[in-house]
């Protein structure tokens, strides 16, 4: 079943049409999963985040709530909130990230090096504020446009630009200046 309109998809989803719900899931579930995986770095947590995000959507639709449009933004915002809560639940990172970010005894192989860099970036992103984190991921990893991010964060584009500017400055400080 391929529904052309997101509005139509949402209308049928409110009626709990199984085909529409399956289409909705297939359209957005992988994106949510990888979004969570990039931030969390753990497949199991990413699966849990994805499942919770879509379960939250079902409950909202059942209670007459949920999105009226911009389903994609709604799902990413929901996933982001779940990740933020997860960050709050888990043990806080050391105040000085230098020790953890740089591991002189890491594996010199490409893959290992990539993994290390990836982990360093992930930790650095986690040190950002939730909104800065969401802007960085959606803008530079998922490749969203500024207006899409503005819809997702329910903020004006000017505020998104300011968030992006501060987030990039923080990442540079965390990742580049420490490496120099």
């Amino acid at each position, binding site marked *: 079943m391929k529904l052309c309109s997101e509005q139509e998809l949402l209308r049928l989803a409110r009626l709990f049409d199984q085909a529409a*719900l399956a289409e909705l899931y297939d359209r957005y579930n*992988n994106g949510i999963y990888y979004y969570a*995986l*990039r931030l969390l770095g753990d497949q199991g947590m990413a699966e849990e985040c994805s499942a919770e995000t879509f379960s939250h959507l079902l409950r909202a639709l059942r209670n007459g709530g949920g999105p009226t449009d911009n389903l994609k933004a709604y799902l990413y915002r929901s996933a982001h909130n779940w990740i933020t809560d997860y960050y709050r639940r888990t043990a806080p990172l050391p105040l000085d990230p230098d020790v953890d970010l740089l591991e002189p005894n890491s594996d010199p192989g490409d893959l290992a090096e990539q993994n290390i860099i990836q982990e360093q970036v992930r930790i650095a992103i986690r040190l950002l504020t939730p909104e800065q984190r969401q802007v960085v991921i959606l803008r530079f990893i998922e490749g969203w446009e500024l207006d899409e991010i503005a819809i997702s964060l329910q903020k004006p584009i000017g505020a998104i630009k300011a968030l992006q500017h501060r987030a*990039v400055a923080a990442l540079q400080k965390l990742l580049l200046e420490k490496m120099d």
Partner: protein
Amino acid sequence: MNPNSELDPQLASQLKTLRRAIPRDPQLASRARESFLAEAAQIAPRVSISPRNRLDGWKETFTSFWKITRREKNPMFNITMAVLIVLGVIFGGGATTVAAAQTALPEQALYPIKIWSEDIRLGWEIDPQAKLDLELQFTARRAEEIGAMLVAGGPVSEPVLTRFENQQRQTLEYAAGMSDELVLPALEQVRNQARQQEQLMMQLQVAEPVAAQIRARIQIMMQAQAQTAQQGIDDPLWLREQLRLHERIHLATPTTTEPSLPTATSATGNNPWTTGTPTPLSGYGPGESQNPWTEGTPTPGSGYGPGTGTGNNPNPSPGSNSEVPEKLPSVQPGNGGGGQPGNGNGNRP
């Protein structure tokens, strides 16, 4: 525009590493999808909460207006509600009936309610001027009713005429009982209304002879009323004295002093106003003129009399007629014959 071009190349390169991700486990993904659809099927809302509500839910919608949710039954609540409903029906219905009765005519069933409501209104009124205004208003109603009955050619019942006559006298009493500064305007009111009603009676188009006789009677009554009021304007003390004497007669002989007009329904062809034997207390009779007020027997001590009587009793004794307020416009049924003779020594014109 590539967003990464906004970044420092080294930072962009580091962020790019996050794009590389381990491919998702297909089994986990498939299981997650099944779980999602199963949850959707489980929490999907049903058509209605229960078959019972779907069948008679509309009844609940209507009956819920009248339901009062109470934790326990209260007998006093039911009694109070019953009393309130009964009172509402009585007073609400009564008010409607009284309002509807205000246009009733004497032959109609609601007429007694109309008369009753008038008496109630007069009884509640305290202000003398307002009381006079009300009585004048009700007298005008009687005149309209009598006029309507005469035009219709129907009989005018005795109680209607009696009441009309009584109300006429009552207006005089109310006017005379007012304070000195108000008595003259009040008597002028009475006089003017009597004159106006006389004119209205004169303009009535009546075809039946009996109706014409009744109309003539009413006109004479109006003339007498206007004349009495005028004499009261000239000498209020005299009018008060006459009324006081009339009241004494009423109290002394209640069975014979209640004035009543001859009924038109008798249809004898004779005018009881001008024929028959006058009673000593009536004072009405043809005499020289049709106005018993000025042509009747003078009351000793009142100083009132026609001056040149034509009656057959030139020497009335105090015991026979001395305290009869013969000038008041009242008649006895079946009499109205010759007036009491004057003694010719009155000092009123």
